[in-house]
């Protein structure tokens, strides 16, 4: 099989992969998209479970008792802003403007941290108001869904900070746009999941609990 190895036609070699691929596309990027497609299944399951048990709790607190829409709206704006700073980091990386790339990456990590801190605070407030993961079906499905999302954001922050660290240690390739783009894809995915969660969990009203 060794003599069947493919050599790319001139001018169409992948810009970032060390090896030519049979698709002509970087394997890393293809793998990232496949991973994100599989993540749709994971979050689809969690969101569906929340919707399935919406309004099915026998005891409170119910969503209307604990949700603070203005507070969560600000969190949503923060995460949305982090997606913007992420693409600005990519634009800077493509221009090989390393200092600006680091600045935008740090801004993205900081906005992500703000979002996670806001989520932790929200969880503690909800807990103080009597909503734990085992209080009712709302608590279970809500904490599992938003908790999984929060863990994903946290991993994203670690990846962003790693990129900044590698860049500071001069361990990123000259063209840092590719690793920045890969982390960016993950980060934007986390953002689009929140777009759905914000609408489905927070904004769409929950049916009133059935009278006992």
């Amino acid at each position, binding site marked *: 099989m060794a003599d*069947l190895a493919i050599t790319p036609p001139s001018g169409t070699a992948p810009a970032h992969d060390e090896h030519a691929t049979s698709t002509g596309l970087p394997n890393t990027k*293809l793998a990232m998209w496949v991973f*994100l497609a599989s993540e749709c299944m994971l979050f*689809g399951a969690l*969101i569906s479970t929340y919707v399935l048990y919406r309004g099915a709790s026998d005891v409170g607190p119910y969503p209307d008792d604990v949700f603070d829409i203005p507070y969560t709206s600000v969190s949503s704006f923060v995460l949305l802003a982090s997606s*913007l700073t992420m693409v600005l980091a990519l634009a800077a990386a493509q221009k090989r403007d390393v200092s600006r790339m680091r600045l935008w990456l740090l801004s993205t990590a900081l906005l992500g941290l703000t979002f996670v801190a806001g989520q932790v605070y929200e969880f503690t407030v909800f807990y103080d108001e009597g909503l734990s993961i085992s209080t009712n079906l709302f608590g279970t499905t809500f904490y599992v869904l938003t908790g999984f999302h929060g863990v994903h954001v946290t991993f994203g922050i670690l990846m962003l900070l790693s990129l900044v660290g590698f860049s500071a240690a001069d361990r990123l390739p000259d063209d840092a746009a590719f690793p920045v783009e890969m982390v960016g894809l993950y980060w934007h995915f986390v953002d689009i999941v929140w777009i759905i969660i914000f609408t489905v969990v927070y904004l*769409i009203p929950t049916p009133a609990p059935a009278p006992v």
Partner: protein
Amino acid sequence: MSETETRFQEELGTRDMPDPREAQAPHHEHPSAKEYIRIGVILAVLTALEVATYYVDVGGALVPTLIVLSIIKFALVVMWFMHLRFDSLTYARFFVMGLAGAATLYLIVLISFGVFVVE
């Protein structure tokens, strides 16, 4: 195309198919920072509209409006920030396959459990 590539394609039965590296190579450059900021502003406005919709009594239009707004936001991020609009169609195919598969599967589950039945 080299002889070894031709042999490889014959073995795979893809001899007459277009060369994927040529057919699927990225067509466009990524947007500029200015365009990204424009999309960011549009996303912020759409989010503000979503939140406003929550407070304004729009009756039965609330849920459809919120869903449409979130789909627009989702599409803007995927197409522009994740560059699916500019990159190879192969990435889009993989992602849409996962997304559509998940949406279909879970919609069937929710319909089976009567979630959308109005009593």
